[in-house]
């Protein structure tokens, strides 16, 4: 099992959610977050006082998937969240040791 963590632009969340539904993903976790990469921040100006805002608002999307679904999920997110411009975000794939569905106590792939 893998945990796919994608950092994407906030306005791409709906597209990503739809694309994941189409490839059969039935659940996900979404967090509003902040960060920066190559896009850097932006500047804000209040009565002449200039502030550089380093951290930009982003969405962190987490999906736990079976090993054989990983490529499909990653490419769905990549396609949905891409604008071709700097600041589109990143996808991290990590190994997942165990998954438990709390209601039934099921574990492993059955719990996904």
């Amino acid at each position: 099992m893998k945990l796919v963590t994608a950092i994407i632009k906030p306005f791409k969340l709906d597209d990503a959610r739809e694309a994941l539904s189409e490839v059969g993903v039935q659940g996900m976790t979404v967090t509003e977050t902040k960060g920066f990469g190559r896009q850097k921040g932006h500047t804000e100006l209040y009565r002449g006082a200039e502030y550089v805002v380093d951290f930009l608002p982003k969405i962190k999307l987490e999906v736990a998937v079976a090993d054989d679904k990983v490529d499909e999920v990653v490419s769905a997110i990549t396609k949905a969240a891409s604008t071709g411009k700097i600041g589109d975000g990143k996808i991290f794939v990590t190994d997942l040791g165990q998954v438990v569905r709390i209601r039934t106590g099921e574990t492993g792939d059955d719990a996904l």
Partner: protein
Amino acid sequence: MKRLFSNFLSQKALLGALVAFYALVAPSIAMADDLDTGDTAWMIVATLLVLLMTIPGLSLFYAGMVRSKNVLSVMMQCFAITCLMSVIWVVYGYSLAFDATGMVEGTVNFNSIVGGLGNAFMGAITVDSMTGTIPESVFATFQMTFAIITPALIVGAFAERMKFSTMLVFMTLWVTICYLPMVHMVWAGPGGLLWDWGIIDFAGGTVVHINAGIAGLVACIMLGKRKGYPTTPMPPHNLTYTIIGASLLWVGWFGFNAGSAVASNGTAGMAMLVTQIATATAALSWMFVEWMKHGKPSVLGIASGAVAGLVAITPASGSVGPQGALLIGVAAGAGCFFAATMLKRAMGYDDSLDVFGVHAVGGIIGAILTGVFTAPYWGGSGAEDFVIGGQVWIQIKSVLFTVIYTGVLTAIILKVLDVVMGLRVSEEDEIEGLDIISHDERGYNF
């Protein structure tokens, strides 16, 4: 501003006795004969409008510009000042400001600077006592709202770092030593120092705005910069409050300026018109200058420009015409923009919410230009023989007097308080935020 009032004062004792006599023999016909219901109705409304300027107008305007951890502290300061000044005004404020005992036209004496205590606790105000054509109770309440907003303006200069207890003591002393004498010298009638100089200050360019603006500058220098200024970002936490506050200030200001006619007449009408013109023009002036200098027109910019216009038209609103108002607006918007952005950074003081940059600078621009645009040539209501040069010199002299008077006395008050009780919260408390530290509350519990 109050020629009517001063003329009346000379007859006040006699009239008061008469009225009291009537009240005894025939309570049902006790109303003074010269009461004008139109004037009275307008002045009651104007009083409410000026109160609206401080709470919630100024309160929201300032609260939006501070960081979220200090939002309540600013609102609390404005609200507490509203209450404190009301009480001071009753106890001795109204008397020190407007008691004309001992004033002699053309003579400089102690009573040219400050009034006596003859009307302490408003002992002389009754249902029947009059100021011109309105009840004295209405006039005293109207002026009370001016005594509320002037110290409240200073809050913006030391926002986010002053001790609440020291702030209350400072405001009590400041209003007593700086504000009440300024009111007396400018508005209390013939024999007042600046009145006799011939100053034109219709609604409070020197008395209110330069006075508060200079006190703000002195206060922010003596308290010192906020921790982290100017390297740490301190962006406004909610500019929607600020634009709502500026809008309420704008609406309330019609009470401030048009109400200063103390009548429902042509002067009040023209004050209303020129106030609208100067405010709109100054807002655009700030917006376009900022657009050119910084690349984008900002919400904080247009709101600040509007307030700058309101400030600058204040001394002029009783004597200039529409053309003068347009030009005062242009000058105030651009002038205050440079003061609040470049001057502040060049000089390095931390006037948190630009009390000096907007109120002192806008007030000075307005006070001096009043001397120009009151001229009939510019559509003002000056007499045929009005001399621009002479009046401008009187205005400049009055501005300099106000700057020095309030600057020196504010510095002395703060120096004493610094020694006696300390001006600032501790560094640790400042980082935590004044809402929790001073009031055990948070503005936002999401």
